[in-house]
């Protein structure tokens, strides 16, 4: 029982990371109707930026985090201008391929700059945690879960309670109508990219201490986050969060009870099953009517 609770805790921690990255996916998807296959590389960049700032330059941890998030925000803007904006009027296929190209560019760019050896980043807490009964709650995992919950709350407030949130929603629902009402669609999409990149970077900052920091870390997180958002119900914010948590738990239990080498396969197997029997996802995105 204690072991299972421990696994559940770890699973929720891992799932929170997927949920954070999945949130970024969903936001960009809702604003542009395009899936950004480089979303995970935002997390990878965030993690590497922490290694460079906190270890190589020896800056304080908190300052490194702030600088990393700022850098990712700027990067989100560049990404929009270089990868999405020129293709905004085309179908989704060229844009998907373009983001895949960006992913290759980013991973190999970092590889060329930093070499293939995985880096590690210490946690701020240096291994402390809380023990409740037989379950050890690692502080980094607690931090991840807490930040993920805070971001979800923040996002909810942003979208439902602020004017800019309303504008973002309008753009995601009907770009033409939004622009007729005087909303600058281009600006809103820019805001979305900046926010999503920052969110991805934050996921990278959080996950860096529990994983090795490597160029491939982003794409494996992103693929699972994407799978999570489909499992939960694609295009739905709540679906992304629930899907992420479910996936994290399934994966942790699968690795503990079934097989470690096939750990990564569970996510994709789960995805297959969901697509087969409930393609609209657990929360059920309305299947878009074609006009």
């Amino acid at each position, binding site marked *: 029982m204690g072991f299972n609770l421990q696994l559940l805790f770890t699973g929720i921690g891992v799932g929170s990371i997927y949920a954070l990255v999945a949130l970024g996916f969903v936001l960009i*998807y809702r604003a542009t109707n395009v*899936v950004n*296959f480089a979303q995970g590389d935002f997390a990878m960049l965030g993690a590497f930026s922490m290694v460079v700032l906190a270890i190589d330059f020896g800056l304080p941890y908190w300052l490194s985090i702030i600088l990393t998030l700022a850098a990712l925000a700027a990067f989100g803007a560049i990404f929009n201008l*270089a*990868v999405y904006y*020129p*293709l905004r009027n*085309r179908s*989704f*296929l*060229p*844009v*998907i*391929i*373009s983001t*895949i*190209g*960006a*992913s*290759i*560019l*980013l*991973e*190999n*760019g970092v*590889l*060329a700059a930093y070499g293939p050896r995985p880096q590690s980043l210490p946690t701020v807490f240096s291994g402390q945690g809380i023990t409740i009964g037989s379950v050890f709650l690692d502080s980094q995992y607690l931090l991840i879960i807490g930040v993920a919950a805070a971001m979800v709350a923040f996002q909810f407030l942003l979208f439902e309670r602020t004017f800019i949130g309303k504008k973002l929603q309008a753009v995601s629902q009907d770009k033409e109508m939004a622009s007729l009402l005087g909303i600058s669609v281009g600006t809103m999409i820019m805001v979305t990219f900046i926010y999503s990149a920052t969110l991805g970077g934050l996921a990278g900052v959080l996950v860096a201490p529990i994983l090795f920091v490597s160029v491939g870390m982003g794409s494996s997180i992103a*693929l699972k986050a*994407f*799978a999570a958002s*489909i499992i939960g119900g*694609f295009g739905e914010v709540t679906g992304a969060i629930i899907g992420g948590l479910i996936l994290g738990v399934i994966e942790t239990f699968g690795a503990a009870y079934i097989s470690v*080498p*096939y750990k*990564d*396969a569970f*996510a*994709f*197997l789960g*995805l*297959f099953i969901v*697509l*087969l029997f409930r*393609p609209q996802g657990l929360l059920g995105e309305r299947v878009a*009517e*074609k*006009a």
Partner: protein
Amino acid sequence: MSADSLAAKAVPTGRGKRRWHPGDLGTVVYAIVASCTVLAVLSVPLQGYALNLLMQASTYAIAVLGLTIVLGYTGQINLAQAAFFGLGAYSVALGTTTLSLSFWLAAILGIGIAALAGAILGLTSLRLGGHYLAMVTISFQMIATLILTNWIAVTHGPDGVPGIARPTLLGLSLAEGTRYLAFCIGILCIVGYWVYRLRMMRLGRAMQAVRDNELAAGVTGVNTYQTKVLAFTLSAALGGLGGGLFAGGFTYISPDQFSFSESVVFLTMALLGGARSPFGTAFGTGLLILLPEWLRFLKVIYLAVYGAAVILIMVFMPEGIWGFVNRFWQKFYPPPLRVLDGLAPLPLTLEKGEPDGSVILEVSALSKHFGGLKAVDQVDLKIAHNTVHALIGPNGSGKSTLLNVLSGIYRSSGGHIVLSGRDISALPPHRRAASGMGRTFQNIRLFGAMSILDNVKVGAERPGNTLASGAKALDSHALAALEFVGLAERADESVGSLSYGHQRHVEIARALAGNPALLLLDEPGAGLNHIEKDALVLLLQRLKGHGLTILIIDHDMNLVEQVADHITVLNFGRRIADGKPIDVLHDPQVIAAYLGEEAAHGTA
């Protein structure tokens, strides 16, 4: 051997009096060039590095040709081509070593396994469209790599499989490198030719129609889902074939050769060369295999440059190098006008048919609800044979929704649709087309990257159209439909080169070519200027004169009055009037709902 079979294909057989076509010359030239290439490879002793590069290029190109079909022709993404390639390669490797099967048997097994995997993958995910397909193929690729790496007992794990033997063909050993290469190139030439021809076959046209406009493809009679699954299966099979040959070529394989990054490489090869053309694809493959050699000085950042190149290709050459070149070619050498001699007129269903009062379409209590909104509410409609029936109503009254429900784009929320005595309420769009329903769209939906003639051919090929069976009959029938709307001479031009009004005529010709029992016209006058509108009225009157049964929606009362025999009026999703034009247009309820509302907003 490959060249012989090509030459055999070059002479069209079984078509009797078919006239010489410039395309046949191309086939002969292709056959000669292909056989010379194979012979040249046989006579030049290649070895070591050059041999390996060519071996890789020719086997990769076969797999990338699969992407021409699925991505270039059908417009569906496949990010698992390396996995299918791997399935073929591992079938040959394990089949010939562990299971001691013959190379040929193992290779055929490999193609079969890859095709089966492709079919299953396609069946599960192709209903869902783009992003899901991208994700599902990536998932499949990841699982395949995990299994190849971790199922050591069977796949030998990361160490790979060594000692794969090359086969003997008709008593001739292909063990020697150049011979095997010549064999691979021969296969590549055959596959390339077939993929090239596919574009001009019925299946190929259906694929392109799905790519250019899936919705229109469905209502034109293309089974879009089946077409996509077939494309995916064929693509996977070609991946398996390429992989099987690859395993024989290198005699050693390991899991890292079939990873996700290789799938991306395959995709880039197709895109760079131009996914819509097999020549472009082959060119792209060769280029990307040679590029690393030329860019050796970039070694460390090579892959980063590669990623940047993918973005740049998408931004500046979305149709690849071949599409880029082709565009210039088309600009300076536009296709000539068709010379039409002895073209039979379009055989319309009933020449000078007289309305006899019998009903062709009966709609009863039809509803369509979007959540709480009743866009179409309990509508009854009867359309008599050989009449032009107009459906009018203010904006938002549910006319277009009704048409979409009739043609199967929307599933009805209740009620029945009976066409020619058959209940079609539950059928998908392509089966409604097969039962004789043709339609056009308010916002023109043509197959944008296809020629005018090919657009109309897709229409003529609707299942159940007996007037256009056989390649020759198909051609002349499609041309006759174009002649009817006055565009036959320009048949070989791209639809994009036509004016808006002419595009509308092509859309009508596409529907006519299918020989529909009932033609639905969704605001055919929308967006046309006065001259174009006059031409449209003339065309509609000619159709009416031929006795075609038409259901037309339009706002232009002038147009409606000139052609309609019968008018039904909708308001807020409900039928408020139905009858002869003169009665309906004087109905006070209609004036209040329709014209009255117009008058109220008249000054705006």
